[in-house]
């Protein structure tokens, strides 16, 4: 629901830009026929209802996403201090920092109910009010049409009808007051029939429904009011188009006779005298057939408005510097050879949120890959051995595409590589894992980071012999079997424990809890520069009982 509200909010703001443009064009093209203006309002309607748009280089829209959704949690502000490299080595022994750490700006982490939710609720209540108004309005008008008799075709007259109007979307009818002279009647009928031919009895309610969704936006109200006016003027134009001066005088008289005390903007009826009678009479009396070239110009302006404002600006290419694309706040990179840690600090990014915090530094690949700090503008050289990391994040999910590049600029990871960043359960950082998806393997771990070994728990280091021995138990293996071994915790919403073995292998156990039968018990190879990681669930039983042993031998 909050996502819907934010989608609508963004559409509303984009549409507001277009409304301003339309207002300007309306002013410029006063002499042009009103149906062009209504086309322009149609463009606004598209913007109000359609969250997608073609991306072209001609777009003049400044932005498409104006308001990013806060996560559903309220903000808690954390201001980390400038990190002293020495502090890092203290906190995480064995880590070497190969470049100066840039100071971090204020970060917010969100937890609990937030303003987004409250706003969405307000929005929904506003819609409720509008719909109630619509219902009440319709009922009142329907009541008025109760005692009417058919006059001619779809034209009805009645005592209770004070002013002519059109009512009904499926089978629209024209309602006229009872005592109307033949002459005024023919003009009024001509006008109302013009409404029907232009399908105004559909557009106007549609417009009101859009207004219902965007009730909070005053520009949309202005748009709707002007749309109603323009609809009336367009119908007048259509009727008066082929009239001579005397007939136009008669028509204006009819308008005057029928103009009622103007009530509030009504959603349903297209009352003859409802909207801006004075303006309409003036227009009718001064009507001149619009010059051909003005019509052409107006249509061109309309088309141009569509191209410039109905399309979205092109998505920034991956390598350009744009704060919205990059979601790493700060990355400590160490020498990959020692295979210790890459810790990615991603404050504010929790897997549950759909939008991460904007980033302040990006990694720019190139001959000399550099970190570019968006706040201070500093550039720093950071690399991990002979690779560097290019990360692109998708703001809709916590998914990242990660490309590993070699020094030479060669791209290393596959097309379907994907990086997942999971905060460590102890809250001391995050684990970055890069997976590659291919036809042969559902996922292959190309690269992963992990905490320094020997940290928390069990004392014994897991060895390959242990693994082989345990694998004999096959599906009887449980978490408890590994209780005595040292592991590092790497999971968030599930349990994922990594047991270091040696330079080549590590064991990974995942599951919903740390008791009983785990989901996976994978013996994995560590990444090497250019090979993908391989893994095997050590519980697998095949024709030859040595499958695990074979795996080990194959990868030693």
């Amino acid at each position: 629901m909050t996502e819907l509200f934010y989608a609508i909010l963004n559409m509303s703001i984009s549409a507001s830009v277009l409304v301003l443009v339309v207002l300007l064009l309306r002013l410029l093209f006063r002499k042009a026929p009103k149906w062009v203006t209504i086309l322009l309002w149609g463009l606004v309607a598209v913007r109000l209802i359609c969250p997608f748009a073609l991306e072209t280089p001609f777009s003049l829209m400044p932005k498409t996403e104006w308001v990013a959704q806060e996560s559903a949690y309220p903000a808690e502000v954390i201001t980390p201090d400038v990190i002293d490299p020495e502090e890092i080595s203290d906190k995480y022994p064995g880590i070497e920092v190969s470049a100066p750490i840039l100071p971090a700006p204020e970060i917010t982490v969100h937890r609990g109910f937030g303003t987004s939710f409250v706003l969405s609720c307000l929005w929904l209540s506003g819609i409720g009010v509008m719909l109630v108004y619509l219902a009440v309005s319709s009922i009142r008008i329907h009541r008025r049409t109760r005692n009417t008799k058919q006059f001619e075709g779809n034209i009805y007259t009645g005592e209770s009808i004070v002013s002519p109007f059109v009512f009904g979307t499926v089978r629209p009818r024209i309602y006229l007051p009872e005592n109307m002279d033949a002459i005024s009647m023919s003009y009024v009928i001509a006008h109302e029939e013009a409404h029907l031919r232009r399908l105004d009895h559909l557009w106007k309610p549609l417009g009101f429904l859009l207004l219902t969704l965007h009730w909070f936006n005053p520009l949309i109200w202005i748009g709707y009011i002007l749309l109603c006016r323009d609809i009336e003027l367009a119908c007048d134009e259509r009727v008066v188009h082929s009239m001579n001066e005397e007939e136009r005088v008669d028509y204006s008289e009819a308008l005057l006779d029928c103009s009622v005390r103007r009530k509030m903007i009504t959603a349903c009826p297209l009352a003859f005298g409802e909207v801006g009678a004075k303006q309409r009479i003036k227009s009718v009396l001064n009507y001149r057939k619009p010059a051909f070239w003005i019509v052409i110009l107006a249509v061109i302006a309309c088309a141009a408005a569509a191209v410039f404002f109905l399309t979205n600006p092109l998505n920034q290419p991956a390598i350009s510097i744009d704060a919205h694309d990059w979601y790493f706040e700060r990355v400590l990179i160490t020498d990959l050879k020692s295979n210790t840690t890459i810790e990615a600090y991603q404050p504010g990014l929790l897997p549950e949120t759909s939008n991460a915090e904007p980033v302040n530094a990006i990694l720019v690949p190139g001959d000399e890959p550099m970190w570019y700090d968006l706040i201070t503008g500093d550039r720093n050289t950071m690399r991990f051995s002979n690779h560097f990391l290019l990360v692109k994040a998708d703001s809709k999910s916590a998914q990242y595409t990660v490309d590993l590049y070699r020094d030479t600029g060669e791209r290393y990871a596959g097309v379907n590589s994907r990086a997942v960043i999971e905060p460590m359960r102890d809250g001391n950082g995050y684990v970055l894992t890069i997976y590659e998806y291919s036809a042969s393997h559902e996922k292959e771990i190309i690269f992963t980071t992990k905490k320094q070994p020997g940290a928390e728990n069990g004392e014994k280091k897991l060895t390959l012999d242990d693994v082989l021995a345990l694998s004999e138990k096959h599906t009887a293996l449980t978490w408890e079997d590994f209780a005595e071994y040292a592991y590092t915790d790497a999971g968030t919403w599930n349990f994922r424990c990594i047991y270091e073995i040696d330079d080549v292998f590590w064991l990974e156990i995942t599951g919903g809890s740390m008791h009983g039968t785990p989901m996976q018990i994978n013996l994995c190879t560590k990444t090497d520069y250019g090979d993908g990681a391989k893994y095997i669930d050590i519980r697998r039983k095949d024709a030859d009982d040595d499958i695990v042993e074979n795996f080990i031998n194959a990868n030693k």
Partner: protein
Amino acid sequence: METPKIFEKEYRFCLILWENEPISRAELARICEDQFGWKATTTYTVVKRLCDRGVLTIENNLISALVTKEEAQLAEIDGFVEEKFEGSLPAFIAAFAKKQEFSDSDLDELQKMIDQARKGGGK
């Protein structure tokens, strides 16, 4: 039988009819175009509506009025007396005599009626 109503705006059209009846549609349309600038279709529509109301009739392609000018004027006065004098003709006459008791709008209305009557007679 109650006289079918002729609205104020239709009055000038009826004048044409009363002066030229019986008249063909085409001829009537021509005159209306001349006098009022009406398109033929407008004239025909008005004819049809008035025919439905019982003000005129079409026979053998000729239009003639069912309501005479005098009947129309009388109906107008009747309506006025009904509206403003609760149907009492004596009251109307008395009021007519004591002009100072008329309100402005009454005067206007009366004046209009008189003018119409005069127009009808003079033209």
